[in-house]
């Protein structure tokens, strides 16, 4: 029981059901609006979510973290920097999953700038493009991807400066 209560999936689901019931009890019409929104959105995105999860699953298996670290090297030099600002865009996962990978990169001698660029580029989230295009249209998605590269470059350059001064 204790384990179940600590389970994230269980927490989110029970919170969702709890809130919906509460709203429904207070005002049935509002509760129905919540139920309808959840139902419609869920079935609207289910196929995309499954597809995206398959993309990320395949990527994780075929491109191991160790391989990524090897490819990116220290993220130094022009080639390394370009890779660090672009390649992570293809990766999935949350911040929780990439920090450990970055620790390895850092131990291999990657600079603060390269690490910061990596995190920012990872924010590009190309595997989620189907979702982004569905909800925000492709001009937004494409422009954001372009901006992510600029973002990653700027982060790398600025972090390098900031960390140099303080270290």
């Amino acid at each position, binding site marked *: 029981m204790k384990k179940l209560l600590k389970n*994230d*999936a*269980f*927490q*989110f*689901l029970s*919170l*969702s059901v709890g*809130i*919906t019931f509460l*709203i429904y009890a207070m005002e049935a019409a*509002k509760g129905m*609006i*919540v*139920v309808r*929104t*959840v139902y419609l*959105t*869920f079935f609207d*995105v289910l*196929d*995309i*979510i*499954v*597809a995206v*999860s*398959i993309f*990320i*699953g*395949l990527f994780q*298996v*075929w491109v191991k973290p160790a391989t990524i670290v090897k490819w990116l090297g220290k993220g130094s030099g022009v080639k390394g920097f370009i890779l660090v600002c672009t390649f992570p865009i293809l990766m*999935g996962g*949350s*911040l*929780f999953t990439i*920090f*450990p990978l970055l620790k390895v990169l850092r131990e291999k001698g990657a600079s*603060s700038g390269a690490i*910061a660029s990596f*995190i*920012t580029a990872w*924010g590009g*989230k190309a595997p*989620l493009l189907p*979702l982004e295009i569905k*909800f*925000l249209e492709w001009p937004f998605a494409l*422009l*954001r991807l372009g*901006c992510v590269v600029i*973002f990653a470059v*700027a*982060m790398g350059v*600025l*972090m390098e400066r*900031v*960390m140099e001064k*303080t*270290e």
Partner: protein
Amino acid sequence: MVYLVIASGLLGGSYLKDKQKTKEALWATFKILYTILPVLIFVFVLMGLIQAYVSRETIAAILGKQTGVMGILYAELVGSIALFLPPAVFPFGGYLHDNGAAYGPIAGFVFTAILIGVTTLPLEFKLLGKRFTIARNILTFVIAFFLAFFMGVVLG
């Protein structure tokens, strides 16, 4: 549907190349779904709550085009604090857009929701150092602001 077809195609190709790896990939996919779906449902409930209680006018007043710079800053703050898994960011952003939020604030929200996390701060401190973490999060917030502003101008 198209995406599912592509995904199945890739799975098939992967299976032909390496059965074991494909099994691992399917297991990874399952774990991702198990993590993502409950969070998504929670976010959909939040969307439902907004639908039920917050008017379009209110959203437009906070995040609409005429809010300009402030709208972007509000959206970035929400994105920084919110406990959003990346896949939940886009449905929520799209939902806000349909209800009167402008592209600039949404871009700000998307950037910070993915890149800044109050919940991940302790881990980032531990693994990458305090100075790095503080500098990275502040810089991310600032640069996200300019890029979001730019995107808002371009997308109108």
